[in-house]
């Protein structure tokens, strides 16, 4: 049903989006925690910095990534020399660019649920002998799981369509970084590419619709659980 190029683009999009979420979550949880719980100088500036990808043109994000993570960049160079890892112009790089773009969305979702966690529960755990990491893992994390899930779903859905940052940082390499939107863009640049473009658009549309339905389904489940505190899944 799908041509090899189409299915390549589809799978690549799914894989890049999934990997971007995996990149995102640990950092997003940490940053959300810092922004809700920690008191430090420059917190407001840090908050603004985290939200930058929301307001910057994606091309700018891609360009900055290229400067930092390119093979000659300070971080990219180090990664290349020490571990032999190359990010620019690879699918991992595409996932990184996607992750940076959706990062604020994930932080926001997690932060909201962190703000709703009753700190008294953590105090109670502390009097019962739980240390800081133990408290976070056994109490806080399960309680913010709905927020993490919501953030992950949103980031995944948004990641399927990331264009500007990916094409700038990871370029448009078939089978490596040519995700659905990039394939669609390429098709539009090619003579006689109209039919392909239309097919890719339909694939994107179906994917987006499916994503929204899953997200809606999940958030309804979460609302149900919040009305009635979480009752399964984290039982020991």
């Amino acid at each position: 049903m799908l041509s090899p190029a189409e299915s390549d683009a589809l799978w690549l999009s799914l894989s890049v989006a999934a990997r971007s979420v995996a990149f995102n979550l640990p950092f997003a949880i940490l940053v959300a925690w810092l922004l809700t719980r920690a008191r430090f100088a420059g917190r407001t500036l840090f908050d603004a910095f985290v939200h930058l990808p929301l307001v910057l043109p994606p091309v700018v994000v891609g360009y900055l990534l290229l400067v930092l993570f390119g093979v000659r960049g300070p971080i990219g160079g180090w990664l290349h020399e020490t571990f032999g890892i190359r990010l620019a112009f690879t699918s991992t790089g595409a996932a990184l660019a996607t992750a940076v773009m959706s990062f604020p969305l994930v932080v926001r979702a997690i932060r909201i649920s962190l703000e709703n966690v009753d700190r008294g529960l953590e105090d109670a755990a502390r009097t019962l002998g739980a240390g800081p990491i133990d408290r976070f893992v056994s109490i806080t994390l399960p309680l913010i799981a709905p927020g993490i899930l919501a953030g992950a779903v949103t980031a995944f859905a948004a990641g399927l369509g990331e264009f500007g940052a990916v094409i700038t940082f990871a370029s448009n390499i078939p089978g490596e970084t040519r995700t659905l939107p990039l394939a669609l863009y390429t098709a539009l640049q090619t003579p006689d590419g109209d039919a392909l473009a239309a097919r890719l658009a339909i694939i994107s549309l179906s994917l987006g619709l499916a994503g929204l339905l899953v997200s809606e389904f999940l958030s309804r489940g979460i609302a149900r659980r919040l009305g009635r505190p979480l009752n399964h899944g984290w039982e020991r």
Partner: protein
Amino acid sequence: MLRVALRKRRGDFDLDVTFSAPTPGVTAIFGRSGCGKSTLISLIAGLLTPDSGQVVVGDDHWYDSERSLSVDARHRRMGVVFQDARLFPHLSVRSNLEYGARRLAKSAARPVAFDDVVSLLGLGTLIGRRTYELSGGERQRVALGRALLAQPRLLLLDEPLASLDLARREDVLPYLEKLRDALAIPIIYVSHQFDEVLRLATRVVLLDDGRVAADGDIAAVSIDSKLRAIVGPDSVGAVVGGLVERVDLSGLAMVRVGDATLNVELDEAAVGQRIQIQVLARDVIVATEAPRRLSVRNVVPARVTSIRPDVGRSVLIELDIGRTSTLLARITERASAELALETGKQVWALIKSVSLRGHVFTVTGR
């Protein structure tokens, strides 16, 4: 022995509290809302850091500002029960109960056994439930069990009944009494309801605006004028300790109080049982001659030790009834003048037995 000396400034509020509590036994911290009770509990538990002071239980120093010592709350082994229970909503009742126990060292002694706590607090039918299925009273019982199973050296109960209505409080109070009598764990009980204090504690620390206003046996604190300001004039009454000497077939108990014997209705009286009775000042009648042919059951010889102005046109009379027991009587200024009451005068205090109903509390033998 628990020794607490703590200082903490928070904005306008300045808490400066020193008291000690015998262990085991129940010490009540009593005061109005906002007098610093909950802050004090957080400081003792280590959830808040004091500005200076000491927290010592037995030989264990948990906080000492002079030695720059502050043991983290999680190592203090203080079982805290909060007003809002704070059960973990994502865990079942059983997992809540086991939370603290699982975090004990493998070699740690476990004098409080799971099954004992379950039967003591009547948790058998609750174990398999989700926390959101519990009533307010049940939540507090689970919170108590959770604190006990962490094998605490001290129980801090921070208004555990305050969020419950009267009927639900009755669901929990008997369990607290059982707990007090069955376990050798010292308890600090924070409350702004004096009837709870009467029912559970024998010692009271009266807290007012961040300071200890009075501190001692409940009998001594009950006649302290600072308590009167807090409980309100209608609840003023001396608390006297008594010993059940005889119980007749109708259930009326003869209770030795000071040099006198009071007739008291008791639901479950056993000879030898120690009780404490709150005799409301407005229920005490003063006579200067021994009255005859009255329905009143209790006529107690007494000596006036002080007469002080009270609310409105009344005076509050302190009556010594022997063996350091004291009663309070509120009468009008005019009655006092007509009877020519003065300090040192011998009188009779009249107390209707029925007025003592609901004001009699059993005291643990410990």
